[in-house]
């Protein structure tokens, strides 16, 4: 039957002049690669759950996007990652918050949904669950990119976020 996939790589103050043609091409290539992964699952008759996980894993591995590798930093200079997934057929869902060592947080969210009675696990407990269930572990430094570190330094310098009520919380 028919299948369909839609993806996003984050919203924000992306002004037309900000992106060089090369950067724009890189973002579009990243989106295309993610869609190719999800479409491959759907074309082969695979489940929408497998498709969204495969798609998000590609985006998590691409340092251009704020998830997995290339995630933004906390005020303390750490990467704390959040993810969630939901199955429209069963209404089962899984989520993790504040995880620091799982290479692909979306797969950990799926493990919470399928291998625990819970919906949401957080921080060191989620990290421990990830290890116990054999998710691929990485050193926290894996998520770091120079570009995101510079964004944190800029944020620390002028705390624009504190002045902007919409981003009052960081």
């Amino acid at each position, binding site marked *: *039957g*028919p*299948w*369909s*996939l*839609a*993806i*996003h*790589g*984050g*919203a*924000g*103050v*992306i002004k037309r002049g900000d992106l060089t043609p090369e950067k724009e091409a890189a*973002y579009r290539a990243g*989106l*295309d690669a*993610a*869609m190719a992964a999800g479409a491959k699952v*759907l074309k082969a008759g*695979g*489940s*929408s*759950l497998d*498709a*969204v996980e495969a*798609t*998000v894993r590609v*985006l*998590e591995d691409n340092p251009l*996007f*704020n*998830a997995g590798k290339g995630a*933004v*930093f*906390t*005020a303390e200079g750490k990467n*704390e*990652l*959040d*993810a*969630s*997934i*939901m199955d*429209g*057929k069963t209404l089962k*869902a899984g*989520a993790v918050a504040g995880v620091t060592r799982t290479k692909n*947080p979306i797969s950990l*969210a799926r493990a919470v949904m399928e291998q625990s009675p819970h919906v*949401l696990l*957080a921080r060191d407990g989620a990290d421990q669950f990830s290890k116990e269930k054999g998710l691929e572990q990485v050193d926290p430094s894996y998520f770091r990119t120079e570009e995101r570190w510079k*964004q944190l330094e800029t*944020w620390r310098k002028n*705390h624009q*976020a504190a002045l902007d009520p*919409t*981003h009052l*919380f*960081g």
Partner: protein
Amino acid sequence: TVGAVALDQAGHVAAATSTGGMTGKRWGRIGDSPIIGAGTYARDGVCAVSATGSGEYFIRETAARQVCDRIAWKGQGVQQAGDDTIKSIGAIGGDGGLIAIDGQGRAAFSMNDLGMYRGAVSSAHPVARTAIF
């Protein structure tokens, strides 16, 4: 934040979202991404949603669930439901965007920000399309 929503050939929908959060976040702050009903929601025959934006506002407006409820309870189309949900977030000071598909796989993109990295591909439109601004 990144996200995906899909309809498979058996007619089932699913949604997924993943993020690093916001630069400079403190106190273990989390936003809408790991909260079912706010950043992610899916229900067969109705819709699947993944959101991205200032989480506190998406949480308080239960954005992802709101899109689905507008379709299920008010009979709105998926684009209208997405646009009205983002409007409700903007009304309380939030900004961002969301992607959604309905139970038939029709995709919608809604935002009140300057841009959102986004794309769509389907059996009806096998050539993937991307957009930013």
